[in-house]
Protein backbone atom coordinates (compact mmCIF):
# COMPACT_ATOMS: atom_id res chain seq x y z
CA UNK A 1 0.00 0.00 0.00
CA UNK A 2 1.52 3.31 -1.01
CA UNK A 3 1.20 6.72 0.59
CA UNK A 4 -0.84 7.93 -2.36
CA UNK A 5 -3.56 5.34 -1.75
CA UNK A 6 -3.64 6.19 1.96
CA UNK A 7 -4.43 9.81 1.14
CA UNK A 8 -7.26 8.75 -1.17
CA UNK A 9 -8.97 6.75 1.57
CA UNK A 10 -8.61 9.63 4.01
CA UNK A 11 -10.01 12.09 1.49
CA UNK A 12 -13.04 9.90 0.89
CA UNK A 13 -13.54 9.40 4.63
CA UNK A 14 -13.48 13.16 5.24
CA UNK A 15 -16.11 13.58 2.56
CA UNK A 16 -18.28 10.80 4.07
CA UNK A 17 -17.90 12.33 7.54
CA UNK A 18 -18.82 15.84 6.36
CA UNK A 19 -21.87 14.47 4.57
CA UNK A 20 -23.00 12.27 7.50
CA UNK A 21 -22.74 15.13 9.99
CA UNK A 22 -23.92 17.85 7.59
CA UNK A 23 -20.82 19.90 8.56
CA UNK A 24 -18.63 20.97 5.65
CA UNK A 25 -15.89 22.20 8.05
CA UNK A 26 -15.09 18.54 8.85
CA UNK A 27 -13.58 18.22 5.36
CA UNK A 28 -10.50 19.72 7.03
CA UNK A 29 -10.48 17.53 10.16
CA UNK A 30 -7.10 16.24 11.36
CA UNK A 31 -6.36 12.52 11.09
CA UNK A 32 -5.87 12.25 14.87
CA UNK A 33 -8.84 14.33 16.01
CA UNK A 34 -11.23 12.16 18.06
CA UNK A 35 -14.41 11.44 16.09
CA UNK A 36 -16.58 11.01 19.18
CA UNK A 37 -17.19 13.77 21.71
CA UNK A 38 -16.15 17.34 21.12
CA UNK A 39 -13.81 16.40 18.23
CA UNK A 40 -16.18 15.69 15.34
CA UNK A 41 -19.30 15.17 17.46
CA UNK A 42 -20.03 11.72 16.00
CA UNK A 43 -23.12 10.20 17.65
CA UNK A 44 -25.43 7.23 17.21
CA UNK A 45 -27.19 8.78 14.22
CA UNK A 46 -24.27 10.29 12.31
CA UNK A 47 -22.11 7.26 13.21
CA UNK A 48 -24.68 4.94 11.66
CA UNK A 49 -24.75 6.99 8.45
CA UNK A 50 -20.95 6.95 8.33
CA UNK A 51 -20.69 3.18 8.88
CA UNK A 52 -23.33 2.51 6.21
CA UNK A 53 -21.46 4.63 3.67
CA UNK A 54 -18.08 3.05 4.55
CA UNK A 55 -19.65 -0.38 4.03
CA UNK A 56 -21.11 0.69 0.68
CA UNK A 57 -17.95 2.29 -0.68
CA UNK A 58 -15.19 0.07 0.71
CA UNK A 59 -17.07 -3.19 1.35
CA UNK A 60 -15.86 -3.17 4.97
CA UNK A 61 -18.48 -3.81 7.66
CA UNK A 62 -16.79 -2.12 10.64
CA UNK A 63 -19.68 -2.80 13.05
CA UNK A 64 -19.59 -6.51 12.24
CA UNK A 65 -15.85 -6.85 12.76
CA UNK A 66 -15.11 -4.41 15.56
CA UNK A 67 -17.24 -4.93 18.68
CA UNK A 68 -15.88 -1.85 20.48
CA UNK A 69 -15.83 0.32 17.33
CA UNK A 70 -12.22 1.29 18.10
CA UNK A 71 -11.83 1.91 14.37
CA UNK A 72 -13.95 5.03 14.86
CA UNK A 73 -11.49 6.62 17.31
CA UNK A 74 -9.95 8.83 14.61
CA UNK A 75 -9.84 9.05 10.82
CA UNK A 76 -6.32 7.57 10.92
CA UNK A 77 -7.64 4.51 12.80
CA UNK A 78 -10.56 4.13 10.43
CA UNK A 79 -8.40 4.42 7.31
CA UNK A 80 -5.95 1.82 8.68
CA UNK A 81 -8.84 -0.53 9.51
CA UNK A 82 -10.24 -0.22 5.98
CA UNK A 83 -6.89 -0.58 4.24
CA UNK A 84 -6.01 -3.75 6.19
CA UNK A 85 -9.19 -5.38 4.92
CA UNK A 86 -9.50 -3.91 1.47
CA UNK A 87 -5.87 -4.68 0.53
Amino acid at each position, binding site marked *: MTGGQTRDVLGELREILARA*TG*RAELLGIGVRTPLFGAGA*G*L*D*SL*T*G*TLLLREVHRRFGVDVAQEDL*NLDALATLAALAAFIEERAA
Partner: protein
Amino acid sequence: MIVKCVIWDLDNTLLSGVYLESGTRPPAADPAMRTAAVRLRDRGIIHAVASRNPPAAARHAAQVTGLDFAAVECGWGRKSDAVLKIIEDLGIGPDAVAFVDDDLYERAEVSCAVPEALVLSPEDLADAVGWPQFSPAVVTAESRRRGQMYAQRRRRQEEARAFGGSRDAFLRHCATEVTIAPATAADVPRLHELSVRTRQLNTSGEAMAQSELRQLVSSPAHQVTTVRLSDKFGDDGIVGGCVVGCGVGPGAGRTWTVTLLMMSCRAMGRGVIDALLAWLARSAAQGGAATLSVPCLVSPSNVPLRLALAGSGFRASEDRSPQRPVAVFSRPVSGPLPELPDWVISKVAGR
Protein backbone atom coordinates in the same frame (compact mmCIF):
# COMPACT_ATOMS: atom_id res chain seq x y z
CA MET B 1 -45.37 -7.86 12.20
CA ILE B 2 -47.27 -4.74 13.19
CA VAL B 3 -47.67 -2.08 10.50
CA LYS B 4 -46.11 1.18 11.73
CA CYS B 5 -46.78 3.35 8.68
CA VAL B 6 -49.40 3.43 5.92
CA ILE B 7 -48.12 4.99 2.68
CA TRP B 8 -50.94 6.47 0.63
CA ASP B 9 -51.51 7.17 -3.01
CA LEU B 10 -53.67 10.31 -3.30
CA ASP B 11 -55.70 10.31 -6.56
CA ASN B 12 -58.80 8.12 -6.21
CA THR B 13 -57.36 6.61 -3.05
CA LEU B 14 -57.08 9.02 -0.12
CA LEU B 15 -58.81 11.70 -2.23
CA SER B 16 -62.11 11.08 -3.99
CA GLY B 17 -60.92 12.28 -7.39
CA VAL B 18 -57.84 13.32 -9.32
CA TYR B 19 -56.07 16.37 -7.89
CA LEU B 20 -54.71 17.82 -11.14
CA GLU B 21 -57.95 17.29 -13.07
CA SER B 22 -60.24 19.01 -10.61
CA GLY B 23 -59.60 22.63 -11.60
CA THR B 24 -60.17 25.19 -8.88
CA ARG B 25 -62.01 22.82 -6.54
CA PRO B 26 -59.57 20.08 -5.49
CA PRO B 27 -61.21 16.78 -4.47
CA ALA B 28 -62.48 16.06 -0.98
CA ALA B 29 -61.15 13.24 1.18
CA ASP B 30 -62.50 9.80 0.36
CA PRO B 31 -64.83 9.29 3.34
CA ALA B 32 -64.14 5.55 3.83
CA MET B 33 -60.36 6.02 3.57
CA ARG B 34 -60.40 9.03 5.87
CA THR B 35 -62.32 7.11 8.53
CA ALA B 36 -59.95 4.15 8.28
CA ALA B 37 -56.87 6.41 8.38
CA VAL B 38 -58.08 8.27 11.47
CA ARG B 39 -58.81 4.98 13.26
CA LEU B 40 -55.30 3.77 12.45
CA ARG B 41 -53.79 7.07 13.59
CA ASP B 42 -55.55 6.69 16.93
CA ARG B 43 -53.81 3.32 17.29
CA GLY B 44 -50.41 4.96 16.84
CA ILE B 45 -49.95 4.08 13.17
CA ILE B 46 -48.42 6.93 11.15
CA HIS B 47 -49.27 8.02 7.62
CA ALA B 48 -47.17 9.04 4.63
CA VAL B 49 -47.82 10.00 1.02
CA ALA B 50 -46.34 8.65 -2.23
CA SER B 51 -48.04 10.46 -5.08
CA ARG B 52 -47.54 11.48 -8.70
CA ASN B 53 -48.59 15.03 -7.91
CA PRO B 54 -47.02 18.32 -6.93
CA PRO B 55 -46.30 18.70 -3.18
CA ALA B 56 -49.32 21.03 -2.89
CA ALA B 57 -51.51 17.93 -3.34
CA ALA B 58 -50.14 16.43 -0.13
CA ARG B 59 -50.76 19.69 1.76
CA HIS B 60 -54.32 19.69 0.43
CA ALA B 61 -54.78 16.04 1.49
CA ALA B 62 -53.47 16.83 4.99
CA GLN B 63 -56.01 19.63 5.25
CA VAL B 64 -59.06 17.68 4.07
CA THR B 65 -58.25 14.52 6.05
CA GLY B 66 -56.90 16.21 9.20
CA LEU B 67 -53.93 13.82 9.11
CA ASP B 68 -50.28 14.69 9.82
CA PHE B 69 -48.02 13.05 7.24
CA ALA B 70 -44.74 11.77 8.68
CA ALA B 71 -43.16 11.74 5.22
CA VAL B 72 -44.20 12.98 1.79
CA GLU B 73 -42.78 11.86 -1.55
CA CYS B 74 -44.38 13.68 -4.48
CA GLY B 75 -42.91 13.20 -7.94
CA TRP B 76 -43.10 11.34 -11.18
CA GLY B 77 -40.61 8.58 -10.44
CA ARG B 78 -41.44 4.99 -9.55
CA LYS B 79 -43.76 4.43 -6.61
CA SER B 80 -41.41 1.79 -5.23
CA ASP B 81 -38.59 4.36 -5.07
CA ALA B 82 -40.87 6.71 -3.14
CA VAL B 83 -41.79 3.87 -0.75
CA LEU B 84 -38.12 2.97 -0.19
CA LYS B 85 -37.23 6.63 0.41
CA ILE B 86 -39.98 6.92 3.04
CA ILE B 87 -38.80 3.70 4.73
CA GLU B 88 -35.28 5.13 4.93
CA ASP B 89 -36.40 8.59 6.10
CA LEU B 90 -38.50 7.16 8.91
CA GLY B 91 -35.92 4.57 9.91
CA ILE B 92 -38.44 1.71 9.92
CA GLY B 93 -38.28 -1.76 8.37
CA PRO B 94 -39.87 -2.50 4.95
CA ASP B 95 -42.04 -5.11 6.70
CA ALA B 96 -43.52 -2.36 8.90
CA VAL B 97 -45.23 -0.48 6.05
CA ALA B 98 -48.47 -0.89 4.15
CA PHE B 99 -48.91 0.73 0.71
CA VAL B 100 -52.40 1.66 -0.51
CA ASP B 101 -53.10 2.50 -4.16
CA ASP B 102 -56.16 2.14 -6.40
CA ASP B 103 -53.98 1.40 -9.44
CA LEU B 104 -53.29 -2.28 -10.01
CA TYR B 105 -50.09 -1.56 -11.93
CA GLU B 106 -48.63 0.59 -9.12
CA ARG B 107 -49.49 -2.09 -6.56
CA ALA B 108 -47.74 -4.74 -8.66
CA GLU B 109 -44.67 -2.54 -9.10
CA VAL B 110 -44.34 -1.89 -5.34
CA SER B 111 -45.03 -5.57 -4.46
CA CYS B 112 -42.27 -6.61 -6.79
CA ALA B 113 -39.66 -4.08 -5.64
CA VAL B 114 -40.51 -4.14 -1.90
CA PRO B 115 -41.78 -7.70 -1.31
CA GLU B 116 -41.78 -7.24 2.50
CA ALA B 117 -44.36 -4.43 2.35
CA LEU B 118 -48.08 -5.12 2.70
CA VAL B 119 -49.65 -3.87 -0.55
CA LEU B 120 -53.38 -3.13 -0.50
CA SER B 121 -56.16 -1.74 -2.64
CA PRO B 122 -58.42 0.88 -0.97
CA GLU B 123 -61.10 -1.81 -0.52
CA ASP B 124 -58.55 -4.09 1.19
CA LEU B 125 -57.49 -1.28 3.49
CA ALA B 126 -61.03 -0.61 4.68
CA ASP B 127 -61.21 -4.25 5.67
CA ALA B 128 -57.62 -4.46 6.97
CA VAL B 129 -58.35 -2.06 9.83
CA GLY B 130 -59.58 -5.18 11.64
CA TRP B 131 -56.50 -7.30 10.87
CA PRO B 132 -53.94 -8.12 13.58
CA GLN B 133 -51.16 -6.32 11.61
CA PHE B 134 -53.05 -3.08 12.25
CA SER B 135 -53.93 -3.77 15.89
CA PRO B 136 -51.05 -3.03 18.26
CA ALA B 137 -51.64 -4.46 21.74
CA VAL B 138 -50.85 -1.26 23.63
CA VAL B 139 -51.81 2.26 22.61
CA THR B 140 -50.34 5.11 24.66
CA ALA B 141 -50.59 8.89 24.59
CA GLU B 142 -47.23 8.91 22.79
CA SER B 143 -48.41 6.51 20.10
CA ARG B 144 -51.59 8.46 19.33
CA ARG B 145 -49.48 11.57 18.73
CA ARG B 146 -46.84 9.75 16.71
CA GLY B 147 -47.87 11.19 13.32
CA GLN B 148 -47.77 14.70 14.72
CA MET B 149 -44.31 14.09 16.20
CA TYR B 150 -42.97 12.84 12.85
CA ALA B 151 -44.36 15.99 11.22
CA GLN B 152 -42.47 18.05 13.86
CA ARG B 153 -39.40 15.97 13.08
CA ARG B 154 -39.63 16.93 9.39
CA ARG B 155 -39.66 20.62 10.33
CA ARG B 156 -36.76 20.10 12.75
CA GLN B 157 -34.68 18.33 10.08
CA GLU B 158 -35.32 21.09 7.56
CA GLU B 159 -34.12 23.67 10.07
CA ALA B 160 -31.08 21.53 10.98
CA ARG B 161 -30.03 21.38 7.32
CA ALA B 162 -30.07 25.16 7.14
CA PHE B 163 -28.40 25.62 10.55
CA GLY B 164 -24.82 24.53 9.85
CA GLY B 165 -23.26 24.51 13.36
CA SER B 166 -22.49 21.56 15.60
CA ARG B 167 -25.15 19.17 16.87
CA ASP B 168 -25.00 20.58 20.39
CA ALA B 169 -25.34 24.14 19.12
CA PHE B 170 -28.44 23.09 17.20
CA LEU B 171 -29.90 21.29 20.24
CA ARG B 172 -29.43 24.48 22.25
CA HIS B 173 -30.92 26.57 19.44
CA CYS B 174 -34.02 24.32 19.53
CA ALA B 175 -34.39 24.73 23.33
CA THR B 176 -34.02 20.98 23.75
CA GLU B 177 -35.06 19.66 27.15
CA VAL B 178 -34.35 16.14 28.39
CA THR B 179 -36.07 15.18 31.64
CA ILE B 180 -34.89 12.11 33.53
CA ALA B 181 -37.25 10.93 36.28
CA PRO B 182 -38.11 7.82 38.29
CA ALA B 183 -40.80 5.70 36.58
CA THR B 184 -44.16 5.30 38.24
CA ALA B 185 -46.84 2.66 37.68
CA ALA B 186 -48.53 5.05 35.22
CA ASP B 187 -45.45 4.90 32.95
CA VAL B 188 -45.52 1.09 32.65
CA PRO B 189 -47.62 0.87 29.42
CA ARG B 190 -45.31 3.32 27.62
CA LEU B 191 -42.17 1.53 28.87
CA HIS B 192 -43.64 -1.76 27.69
CA GLU B 193 -44.43 -0.22 24.32
CA LEU B 194 -40.84 1.05 24.01
CA SER B 195 -39.55 -2.44 24.81
CA VAL B 196 -41.69 -3.82 21.96
CA ARG B 197 -41.01 -1.14 19.36
CA THR B 198 -37.40 -0.06 19.76
CA ARG B 199 -34.61 -1.95 17.99
CA GLN B 200 -31.80 0.45 17.12
CA LEU B 201 -31.33 1.71 20.66
CA ASN B 202 -32.28 -1.36 22.71
CA THR B 203 -29.97 -3.59 24.77
CA SER B 204 -32.17 -6.67 24.97
CA GLY B 205 -34.03 -7.32 21.72
CA GLU B 206 -36.90 -8.78 23.74
CA ALA B 207 -40.15 -7.24 24.90
CA MET B 208 -40.58 -6.80 28.66
CA ALA B 209 -44.03 -7.68 30.00
CA GLN B 210 -46.03 -5.03 31.84
CA SER B 211 -46.24 -7.31 34.90
CA GLU B 212 -42.43 -7.52 35.07
CA LEU B 213 -42.06 -3.76 34.64
CA ARG B 214 -44.61 -3.14 37.41
CA GLN B 215 -42.61 -5.38 39.76
CA LEU B 216 -39.36 -3.62 38.90
CA VAL B 217 -40.90 -0.17 39.45
CA SER B 218 -41.71 -1.13 43.05
CA SER B 219 -38.52 -3.14 43.69
CA PRO B 220 -36.08 -1.52 46.16
CA ALA B 221 -33.13 -3.19 44.43
CA HIS B 222 -33.92 -1.60 41.06
CA GLN B 223 -34.26 1.85 39.60
CA VAL B 224 -36.62 2.24 36.68
CA THR B 225 -36.17 5.55 34.92
CA THR B 226 -38.05 7.42 32.20
CA VAL B 227 -36.59 9.93 29.77
CA ARG B 228 -38.75 12.67 28.27
CA LEU B 229 -37.79 14.90 25.38
CA SER B 230 -39.14 18.19 24.13
CA ASP B 231 -37.98 21.21 22.18
CA LYS B 232 -39.43 24.28 20.46
CA PHE B 233 -40.90 22.06 17.72
CA GLY B 234 -42.94 19.96 20.11
CA ASP B 235 -43.12 17.51 22.98
CA ASP B 236 -42.11 13.91 22.23
CA GLY B 237 -43.21 12.63 25.65
CA ILE B 238 -41.40 9.59 27.05
CA VAL B 239 -38.82 8.57 24.43
CA GLY B 240 -36.75 6.19 26.51
CA GLY B 241 -36.18 4.37 29.73
CA CYS B 242 -33.89 2.05 31.59
CA VAL B 243 -33.85 -0.49 34.38
CA VAL B 244 -30.84 -0.52 36.70
CA GLY B 245 -29.97 -3.12 39.31
CA CYS B 246 -28.05 -1.27 42.00
CA GLY B 247 -28.08 -3.88 44.79
CA VAL B 248 -29.06 -3.45 48.43
CA GLY B 249 -27.28 -3.94 51.73
CA PRO B 250 -23.62 -3.55 52.67
CA GLY B 251 -21.06 -4.48 50.01
CA ALA B 252 -23.70 -4.65 47.29
CA GLY B 253 -23.78 -2.12 44.54
CA ARG B 254 -20.09 -1.84 43.61
CA THR B 255 -21.30 -2.51 40.08
CA TRP B 256 -24.50 -0.99 38.78
CA THR B 257 -25.94 -3.09 35.98
CA VAL B 258 -28.27 -1.62 33.39
CA THR B 259 -30.47 -4.64 32.66
CA LEU B 260 -32.54 -2.83 30.07
CA LEU B 261 -31.86 0.35 28.12
CA MET B 262 -34.14 1.47 25.33
CA MET B 263 -34.88 4.59 23.36
CA SER B 264 -37.09 5.57 20.45
CA CYS B 265 -35.32 6.16 17.14
CA ARG B 266 -37.11 9.54 17.06
CA ALA B 267 -34.63 10.63 19.75
CA MET B 268 -31.60 9.69 17.64
CA GLY B 269 -29.29 12.56 16.82
CA ARG B 270 -30.76 14.68 19.61
CA GLY B 271 -28.25 13.94 22.34
CA VAL B 272 -30.69 11.98 24.48
CA ILE B 273 -28.97 8.60 24.68
CA ASP B 274 -25.65 10.34 25.47
CA ALA B 275 -27.38 12.37 28.18
CA LEU B 276 -28.88 9.23 29.71
CA LEU B 277 -25.53 7.37 29.69
CA ALA B 278 -23.79 10.37 31.28
CA TRP B 279 -26.53 10.63 33.90
CA LEU B 280 -26.28 6.88 34.66
CA ALA B 281 -22.50 7.11 35.13
CA ARG B 282 -22.87 10.08 37.47
CA SER B 283 -25.70 8.40 39.41
CA ALA B 284 -23.68 5.21 39.82
CA ALA B 285 -20.71 7.24 41.11
CA GLN B 286 -22.91 9.08 43.61
CA GLY B 287 -24.45 5.78 44.67
CA GLY B 288 -20.98 4.53 45.59
CA ALA B 289 -20.43 2.19 42.64
CA ALA B 290 -17.07 1.69 40.95
CA THR B 291 -18.35 0.31 37.64
CA LEU B 292 -21.37 0.80 35.41
CA SER B 293 -22.21 -2.24 33.24
CA VAL B 294 -24.52 -2.54 30.27
CA PRO B 295 -25.08 -6.11 29.04
CA CYS B 296 -26.11 -5.80 25.43
CA LEU B 297 -27.34 -8.24 22.82
CA VAL B 298 -25.05 -7.55 19.86
CA SER B 299 -27.00 -7.53 16.60
CA PRO B 300 -26.88 -5.71 13.26
CA SER B 301 -29.99 -3.74 14.26
CA ASN B 302 -28.58 -2.09 17.38
CA VAL B 303 -25.32 -0.72 15.97
CA PRO B 304 -26.53 2.82 16.92
CA LEU B 305 -26.57 1.72 20.57
CA ARG B 306 -22.99 0.44 20.32
CA LEU B 307 -22.01 3.80 18.80
CA ALA B 308 -23.53 5.59 21.79
CA LEU B 309 -21.77 3.24 24.24
CA ALA B 310 -18.41 3.69 22.49
CA GLY B 311 -18.90 7.47 22.46
CA SER B 312 -19.59 7.43 26.22
CA GLY B 313 -16.45 5.51 27.14
CA PHE B 314 -17.84 1.97 27.50
CA ARG B 315 -15.74 -1.07 26.56
CA ALA B 316 -17.01 -4.58 25.87
CA SER B 317 -15.72 -7.84 27.25
CA GLU B 318 -15.30 -10.48 24.53
CA ASP B 319 -17.14 -13.37 26.18
CA ARG B 320 -19.85 -13.81 23.61
CA SER B 321 -20.83 -17.17 22.17
CA PRO B 322 -23.09 -18.01 19.22
CA GLN B 323 -25.60 -19.32 21.78
CA ARG B 324 -25.54 -16.12 23.76
CA PRO B 325 -24.40 -13.16 21.69
CA VAL B 326 -24.44 -10.77 24.65
CA ALA B 327 -21.44 -8.54 25.34
CA VAL B 328 -21.06 -6.70 28.64
CA PHE B 329 -20.11 -3.08 28.02
CA SER B 330 -18.78 -1.33 31.09
CA ARG B 331 -16.95 1.76 32.23
CA PRO B 332 -15.40 2.86 35.52
CA VAL B 333 -17.23 5.63 37.33
CA SER B 334 -14.50 6.47 39.83
CA GLY B 335 -12.44 8.70 37.51
CA PRO B 336 -13.53 11.60 35.29
CA LEU B 337 -17.18 11.35 34.29
CA PRO B 338 -18.93 12.49 31.13
CA GLU B 339 -20.45 15.96 31.42
CA LEU B 340 -24.21 16.27 31.76
CA PRO B 341 -25.36 18.95 29.29
CA ASP B 342 -27.21 21.84 30.92
CA TRP B 343 -30.42 21.08 29.02
CA VAL B 344 -30.83 17.85 31.03
CA ILE B 345 -33.21 18.08 33.97
CA SER B 346 -32.83 15.35 36.58
CA LYS B 347 -35.87 14.77 38.74
CA VAL B 348 -34.28 11.98 40.75
CA ALA B 349 -33.61 13.07 44.34
CA GLY B 350 -29.96 13.70 45.17
CA ARG B 351 -28.65 13.59 41.60
